[in-house]
């Protein structure tokens, strides 16, 4: 018997593995790729990129909570031009499809960043971050309303020749409705979820712990909610869904795939276990062999089919 296949087609991209990196948790890959096996990954989703360089939020930026972390990085990044000139050539050497996470303050800024990225080679797709909870104009406002979410999507589509993945915010009443609006606006794929807006208070200082007061909650704590959203959205739309939120094992990855995710992304878990992508890949393969699945596609959405 030939070994089962983990290949997927994601909005036209042929990926060798359904395991992606969560934007912002893997930097530009330059820290982790030297120590892990790039073959375990299907694509690299890099840190949120904006037009101008951004300094990010004041520290502290990270706070641990039960089974989760709050982060308030605040989209620190060197801006799209430095990204193209300095970072992109370095990542290119790893021969992985690169998906650039794009953020902006205005509709125009999203389009502007993408226009710039269009000129650069070696980018597979864009992921629109309309869901960053950590900067006032960091996107979350765009992601919590169907109309604006659709507007950003259209603005991006109108300038992009590469696929547009829209990353949804979980801080909404009806994520399926927003997913549908974004699909109608032309999105090629969806990714969900970004972090949940949360906070912690330092009871000695009697002030919020984070420099930015609020931050985004990620990690295993949010997994049950993220999974529910993937379940709802993947049944509502026809475009593929990239599922994420607290995935730290092959079992958790499989839950998301069975709930309807075509691909999954690992974020916070890399911090604790840089080998997690390999463990997930091997776990999925063993499961498929044991249960006689030949292609990972057969498992996508199997829990509601």
């Amino acid at each position, binding site marked *: 018997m030939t070994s089962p296949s983990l290949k997927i087609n994601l909005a036209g991209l042929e990926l060798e593995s359904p395991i992606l990196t969560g934007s*912002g*948790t*893997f*930097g530009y890959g330059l*820290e*982790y790729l030297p*120590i892990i096996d790039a073959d375990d990954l299907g694509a690299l989703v890099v*840190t949120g990129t904006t037009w101008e*360089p951004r*300094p*990010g939020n*004041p*520290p*502290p*930026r*990270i*706070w*641990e909570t*039960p*089974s*989760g*972390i709050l*982060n308030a*990085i605040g989209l*620190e990044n060197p801006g799209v031009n430095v990204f193209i000139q300095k970072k992109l050539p370095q990542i290119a050497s790893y021969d992985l499809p690169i998906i650039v996470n794009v953020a902006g303050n205005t509709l125009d800024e999203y389009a502007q960043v993408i226009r710039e990225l269009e000129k650069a080679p070696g980018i597979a797709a864009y992921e629109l971050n309309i869901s960053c909870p950590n900067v006032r104009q960091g996107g979350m406002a765009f992601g919590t309303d169907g109309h604006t979410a659709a507007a950003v999507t259209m603005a991006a589509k109108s300038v992009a020749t590469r696929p547009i993945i829209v990353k949804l915010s979980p801080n909404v009443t009806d994520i399926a409705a927003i997913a549908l609006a974004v699909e109608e606006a032309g999105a090629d794929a969806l990714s969900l979820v970004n972090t949940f807006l949360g906070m912690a208070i330092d009871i000695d200082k009697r002030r919020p712990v984070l420099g930015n007061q609020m931050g985004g909650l990620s*990690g*295993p*704590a949010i997994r049950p909610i993220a999974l529910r959203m993937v379940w709802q959205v993947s049944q509502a739309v026809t475009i593929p869904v990239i599922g994420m939120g607290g995935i*730290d*094992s092959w079992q958790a990855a499989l839950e998301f795939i069975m709930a309807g995710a075509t691909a999954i992304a690992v974020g*916070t878990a*890399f*911090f*604790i*276990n*840089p*080998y997690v992508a390999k463990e997930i890949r091997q776990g999925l393969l063993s499961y498929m062999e044991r249960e006689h699945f030949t292609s990972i596609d057969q498992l996508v959405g199997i829990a509601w089919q």
Partner: protein
Amino acid sequence: MIIEKARVISNSEIKLGYYFLRLFSPKMAEVAEPGQFAMLRCSYNNTSDPLLRRPLSFHDASWKKGEISFLYQVKGKGTKELSRLVANGSADVMGPLGTGFRLPKVSPGKRQPIAIIGCGVGVAPLVFLASTAHNRGYEVRTFIGARSESSLLVDPILVAKSSVLSTATEDGSAGYHGNIVSLLRNKESLVAECGPAYVCGPEAAMAAVVSLCTELGIPCQVSLESIMACGVGACLGCTCNTTRSPNYTRVCTEGPVFDGEEVVFCD
């Protein structure tokens, strides 16, 4: 950088609330440098609270014995979990990480004095530095402060490697009665001759020592702490304010050791 499950040689409480952890990790022992640190996983068996690894500086590393060690204070749930490690169990450790202390270039034949200044558990990373410096021919002068005797960590290796070792406690329960700055002022002539001063301790103490060093005209290096998620430079979570770059600087990668004058301490 290495990630491995290292065998625990021992993990013992050396003083109430302070533990000494020795791991068998030949690969890490060979490359670790003073001032660098490792990230230790505190949750096992797929549990996820505490979630993040915890950073601990190398207290020592011996490539001969294939051994690395850590000196840590039990603060919260992560270090509490670490304190449950038992001999022959395993510890999931990732390192060495960060940029450590830099020893000064010295003219051949000269026995350059350096100052080692530690407060509380801030002594931990300085032990490795002291023995390395001593072995490379520097003269090590050590100044240790603490709130009181119960948190004064006079490490035997430090004692062995130092030509001078002075201690102070704020409550006078051991050594000189006063804080670290007043101890240093008291020994000003000894300190002022030193090549860099190497400082580690609570932020307020480090800020005060940095001022004093500036005043005395000697360079100094400080080891900063920050809450860390990844420890390798990927998450941008651990940044601190420095004069070095336009933006924030990552403590885990550009640091944890910085030149005293480039750090912007918040007060």
